[in-house]
């Protein structure tokens, strides 16, 4: 380890311990005035188990129920993960052990209640900033917890759309936690479901959640990717790499190849798929090779008219978007960021495996490759 790395490591630990003191004080003040949740809101409450992306927990697309509290529990997990086929390791920080964190689905007018847990085995404080929530730094201000603590936050879902959530412990910690994997998405559905631009209902047969991450893995003097004993040890070098703004990896769902091969996404011809794509830190340009975005909420907010027939759409860093597509032809589709260098060399590629019957009317190889015919 170089001397500069040691210095930065020590600094990271200092930040952590200073923050610990601050949180401790904030909590002492909060606890005394905090009423119990049950007293506060006498409406129905539903506890929902989260599932790891690209899958999404069961939910109604439109609902006739009255608004209720939808309760989720998530554990922050710090762990070493492999992010490419070469075995490159990352000291990841995660929501619920997955990158991205699981998607939470509620309806407009519902209350999202999250129990956020920071197990004692972790080494740093974590919190959560919901872009869909109003006030309190998206909840970040009220959720900062040390290892060994948990916190319960409730917020009202007032705006329909797909939104990013991420860890934001403050200062240099925020970008570091985010590029270490701590982001996910919330989907707030309109109570009567999705609509096209003319108010006609839209529905999906399948939903997939793709979270894109840019990773910044330090290299040693020989150019090989380094690995570290703990998140704190990786902090100094990683910060130096993030400062270049040049990621070493741009991947979907935490790893190059996470959504290809045996893990390819599946669909059938005639099925409609909603693809939710989030990027908490950096712009991306999803594109489905051989397909389109039939209806795309590029900025992710369902009160806006969806765009139609898109070839490529932009996910602004710090946002989520949603694209609805009905598959019309079988085969392998590549879903990637149409910065092809990042897709092919840095990893941001997923595959859809679509079963069904080929439609010659949509496409036909009229003549196979053959020697060039003599011109008339």
């Amino acid at each position, binding site marked *: 380890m170089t001397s500069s790395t040691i210095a930065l490591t020590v600094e990271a630990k200092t930040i952590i311990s200073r923050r610990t003191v601050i949180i401790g004080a904030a909590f002492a003040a909060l606890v005394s005035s905090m009423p119990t949740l049950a007293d506060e809101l006498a409406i129905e409450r539903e506890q929902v188990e989260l599932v790891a992306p690209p899958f999404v927990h069961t939910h109604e697309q439109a609902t006739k129920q009255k608004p209720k509290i939808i309760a989720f529990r998530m554990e922050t997990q710090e762990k070493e993960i492999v992010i490419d086929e070469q075995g490159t390791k990352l000291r990841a920080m995660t929501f619920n052990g997955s990158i991205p964190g699981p998607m939470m689905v509620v309806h407009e007018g519902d209350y999202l209640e999250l129990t956020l847990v920071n197990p004692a085995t972790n080494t740093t404080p974590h919190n959560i900033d919901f872009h869909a929530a109003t006030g309190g730094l998206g909840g970040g201000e009220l959720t900062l917890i040390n290892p060994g603590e948990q916190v319960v936050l409730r917020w009202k879902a007032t705006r329909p759309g797909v939104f990013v959530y991420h860890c934001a412990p403050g200062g240099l910690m925020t970008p570091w936690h985010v590029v270490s994997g701590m982001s996910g998405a919330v989907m707030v559905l309109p109570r009567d479901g999705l609509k096209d631009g003319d108010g006609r209902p839209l529905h999906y047969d399948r939903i997939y959640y793709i979270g894109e991450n840019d990773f910044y893995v330090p290299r040693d003097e020989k150019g090989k990717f380094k690995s570290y004993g703990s998140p704190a040890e990786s902090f100094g070098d990683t910060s130096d790499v993030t400062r270049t703004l040049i990621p070493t990896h741009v991947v979907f769902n935490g790893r190059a*190849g996470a959504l*290809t091969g*045996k893990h390819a996404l599946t669909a059938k011809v005639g099925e409609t798929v909603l693809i939710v794509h989030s990027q908490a830190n950096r712009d991306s340009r999803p594109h489905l090779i051989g397909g389109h975005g039939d209806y795309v909420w590029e900025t992710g907010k369902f009160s806006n008219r969806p765009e139609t027939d898109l070839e490529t759409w932009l996910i602004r860093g710090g946002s989520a978007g949603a694209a609805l597509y009905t598959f019309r032809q079988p085969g392998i589709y*590549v879903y990637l960021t149409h910065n092809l260098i990042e897709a*092919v060399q840095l990893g941001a590629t997923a*595959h859809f495996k679509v079963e069904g019957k*080929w439609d010659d009317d949509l496409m036909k190889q009229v003549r196979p*490759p053959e*020697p060039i015919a003599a011109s008339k």
Partner: protein
Amino acid sequence: MLFLKFRLPIAVALAAPITCSAAMLALPTVKMIEPELIALKAGQVIYPPAGDFTRSGKPISAPPKTVYFARGLRIMKRQVTQAEYWKCVEDRGCPSAVLPGPASADKPMVGVSWRDADAYAIWYSGKAGKRYRLPADEEWAFAAGSRFRDEGWPAVDNTDPAQRWLARYESEFADEPIDKTPRAVGGFGANENGLLDIAGNVWEWTDTCFIRIRIDDAGEQTARTTNCGVRVVEGRHRTYMTDFIRDALSGGCAVGKPPANLGFRLVRGD
């Protein structure tokens, strides 16, 4: 960065392979140790030849072909090693390459293009005073024996272009993922002919060009196009690579599974 030091500028790396000249042969000789050759007895191989085949406009699996090797075949027992290739680089017979560490006499040379491998064959022939070359696809199939695998095109409805594609995707990903780190020579064992590391995690360049063959309903060849800018690569499955590619990488528009590493072995050419 230090690890880039050994890389030639791209323009040089992509230039035509450096050919062996009489002057080079007169240079102080590099100490040559001839690699162990396996002498395969006369025999035959029935195999689906490399290339794209269509019958009456529809893709088909290559019709099996029988090839006789009346004089047998002499082929390297193992793949060319890093140390061997590096002698060629130092002798200016081969383009430079990226090595993970000191050139090892016990590790296969990987990260080489067809052009690099061909340059090595020419340089080595000059040094050895005997002709060595890359094997033809059928020679590789003959030597690989039971470890030979073609592209794995499954027999499916050929009027639906998506079915072959889906089935192939399934079969390529049916294998367990393999560690890309090359093993020491012999790490993947020997086949029934005594050849080491066939179909391990190092794919091997062949000399065979990519061809497209059209067959009519009667089974007669009606057209053929050849592209020698793309060569057949053999290993766990057969694939085709542009001749200047050194690392097949992964992802992107090519949805198949690419070779983990690109290396080679030579055959005696006479």
